[in-house]
Structures are given as C-alpha cells and as structure tokens.
C-alpha cells in the first residue's frame, strides 16, 4: 500500500442471508418447513483504490449495492472474502437522518453521536460548531427530533457528520432534502474540505451534484463495478442506464 493510498479494497465479496419469501417468524419456519435463509451476494469481487484527497462519485440504480459498498469501506460490514484496508478516520454515515434517535432532542443526539464517535473529548467546540452550521435555533435543538421537518433532520445529520474532522467524508444522499440555501452551503463546505485534503466518497442519484464535487466516479450495476473513469463519462454512462 503506497503512502498516499487511503482506501484499498481487494476482491471484496459481500453476501447476506436473505429471508426466503416471508419467513419472518418461528411459526412460518415450522409450518413451511424450508430453510429460512438463502445467501444473496450483494457485491461481487470489488477492487477499488482511493488516493488521499480524491473525491469519488458512486452512481448506480437503487439496489445496486452503493450503500453496502460505503458501509463496507466504513467497517460497518465485514467482508467474507477479500480485504479492506483504510488509512484514516471516518465521519458517521448519516443517510438522511438514519442514526438519529427520534425520541431524543437535537442536543441529546449531538452529545450521543459525538460520544459514540469519540469526538467529544478532542473538540469541545463541536456542539457550537454543529449549531452554527446547521442554523437550527436553540429552541429547535431542545425539541425531540421526531418533531423536525425532513429538511431540519438533514441539516442536523449533515452538520454532525461534518463536526468530526475526519480524513474521509462519506456522503450518502444527504443533500437531497435540504433547502437551496443549505444545499449551497453544504457544497461550499465540501469544496472547502476537499481543498484541505479530505477524501470524499459521494453517493447520489443526481449527476449534476456528482459533476460539481467529484473528479472521478464509478458506476455500480448489480454489485459489479462496470465503469470507472472521469465524472463526466460515468454520468453519461449512468444516464444511459435508463
């Protein structure tokens, strides 16, 4: 692994047990008498190398394995075959609000996620930074997250992922929900981080977004990387899928 390679994925295959048609209870298991699970392969033999400071777009249809790939890189899913080597730290992947606890207030969520991520002790200003960036008022942050609009949730989620000063930023469709002002602000922030040397993995269904942020991109189809190249080419390939 050379000095400036930050992520290296070798021949990674990911398979999951998948529930056979509707066997979700013990009753079904006994009455239908079939094996409840079959193995389904989500990612086939993925090879990918990311250099420090790169920004890569990941495109693909729904269900092509984009989120699984991101989670594998982040270490959330362990591969059965192949290896994933990562030379840096991650921000939590907060795909539109997942990971936030709906019953807890904004502040409680911030404290919980910062503690789980381990930022709390390193950066005492983290809470202030998050409040400032999300532009959510003190009053809003004292409310349970379940009362937030989806845009507010996206603001909070994205601000928390940014608060972590990590080497690798994974963005999974977070920008789709915020209003125009916040989207522009996020794009600015991403460019600023890019300039500072943060590696960015960007998943989106909007080729325009990918073009704005990424130089290179990959296209996933049914768990295979079918195309890789410059962002322009891949976006064209992606649009040809439909």
């Amino acid at each position, binding site marked *: 692994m050379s000095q400036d390679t930050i992520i290296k994925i070798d021949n990674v295959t990911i398979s*999951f*047990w*998948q*529930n056979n048609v509707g066997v*979700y*209870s*013990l*009753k079904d*298991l006994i009455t239908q008498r079939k094996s*409840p*699970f079959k193995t389904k392969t989500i990612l086939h033999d993925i090879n990918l190398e990311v250099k420090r400071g790169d920004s890569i777009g990941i495109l693909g249809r729904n269900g092509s394995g984009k989120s699984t790939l991101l*989670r594998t890189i*982040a*270490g*959330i*899913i*362990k591969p059965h075959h192949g290896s994933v080597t990562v030379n840096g730290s*991650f921000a*939590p*992947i*907060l*795909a539109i609000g*997942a*990971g*936030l*606890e709906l*019953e*807890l207030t904004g502040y*409680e969520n911030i*404290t*919980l*996620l910062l*503690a*789980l*991520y*381990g930022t*709390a*002790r390193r950066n005492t200003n983290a809470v202030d930074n998050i409040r400032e960036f999300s532009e959510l008022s003190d009053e809003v942050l004292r409310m349970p997250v379940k009362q937030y609009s989806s845009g507010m949730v996206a603001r909070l989620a994205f601000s928390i992922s940014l608060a972590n000063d990590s080497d690798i930023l994974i963005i999974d469709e977070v920008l789709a929900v915020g209003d125009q002002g916040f989207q522009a602000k996020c794009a600015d922030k991403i460019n600023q981080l890019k300039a500072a040397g943060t590696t960015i993995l960007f998943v989106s269904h909007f080729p325009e977004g990918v073009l704005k942020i990424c130089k290179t991109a990959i296209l996933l189809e049914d768990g295979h990387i079918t195309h890789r190249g410059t962002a322009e080419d891949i976006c064209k390939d992606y649009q040809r899928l439909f």
Partner: protein
Amino acid sequence: MQNITRIYALSKRNVILRYKNSLVGFFWGFFKPLLYLLIFIVIFKQNSGIPHYILFVTSGLILWFFFSNVTGQSVGSVVGSSGLLKALNIPAYFFPLSETLSELFNLVLTIIVFLIIMNWGGLVYSPRLLLILPCIILFAVFALGLNLLLCSVNVFFRDIGIIWGTIQPALFFLTPIGYPESNIAPQYRIFMKCNPIYYFIKLGRGIFYDAAPPSMHLWVECIVIAVGMYIIGQFVFNRLKNQFISAI
C-alpha cells in the same frame, strides 16, 4: 477508554429514553415492585405462615423485576438501534451490554430505596448485606448472556420478543418469590430446580432474609449458571452478528 465512553453514552441514552415522557419519571421503576408487594400481601400473607413475609417477598421481587426489565428491554435492543448500527462502526454487543448496565444502575437505586422498606419488614442492617453486590453482579452476567442470545435471535425471528413476553409471567410464578419452596409438591420440584432464576433469587434471599448467609454450594451454582449462560449467549451472538446489518 473510548469504548467505556461509548458504552456510558449508550447507557445514559437508555435511561433518558426509558422515562422520557412519563410524569413521575425515574421513580416509576420503584412502583412496580411496590405494587406487586401489595398484591402479595393482600392475597398470600395470611396463609403463607412465613415470618417477616414482607421482607421475604421484597427480597425476591426486586431481583425479579431487574431480570424482567433487563430482558424485556434488551430483546429488541439490536433491532431498535438499526440507525446507529448502520451509521457508525460500533460493536453490536454494546447495545445489550448498555441495556444491562443501565438496568443494573436502576437495580442499585431500587435496592437502596427498598432497604428502608425492608428494614420496616424486619431487615437487620449488617455488613453481610454487602454480599448483595457480588450477587447482583452474578445475576447481571447471567442476564447479559441471556440478553445476547435473545437480542441476536430476535433479529431474524421477530416473534422471539413476543414469545419472551409470554414466557416471563410463567417464569415469575414458577419461581418461589411470593411463596416458600415447600409449597411445591416434591414430584414437581424438578421444574423449580431447572429454572435458573430460582438460584439467584435464593441467593438474594439468603443475603436479605435467611438467618444463615448463603452456602458456598449455592454461590458456586450461581457462578456456574451465570458463566455458562454468558458463554452460550456470546457464542450465538458471535455466530449471528455479521448478518445483523442485512436483517435490521
């Protein structure tokens, strides 16, 4: 060190979430054993023939409610934390572990409050009461093992949670909590002996109620049961944990 901070943060979340929207908040946890104590006094006290009946029941009830709460909370802990598990690289066993720890914290508070009630019921304060600490730690290890088993199987078969809710009350009555062991006819005692909770209740009762402290034999039995349950739970959990993400 970082893991300790993370487990602490999760346990704190559990405590906050549990009593979030309730009026009396934390104290709700004390009412449940208190209510059952009253029921037992009304129904069974007359005929039980047990001296210091209140102390006898209370010593069993507080341990039972720890067990019932902790398993009830933990069974869905992995499924309920899908958001966090999918967002952060965080070991899944933190969730049943933090549930067990926050419930253990609850138990310590409950014991402190009930020491007053038990004193009124005939408890004599003595250094022997400190033996309750190793007792509840053993019970918590047993509960953690069972929690690991329940919460990991529940990911794939969601009716585990429902089945457990049905089994629990049956276990409660099978365990001699409100009645003495001698009430069970000799030919059925085998069922009582097969119930692992019986040994922990007996241990707690040995510390709070009986004239003599619990025997070495009983301590060893509890250690074997606790460690055995933990090993089984950990084994099943480890076999299943890599498949959690796809199923939650």
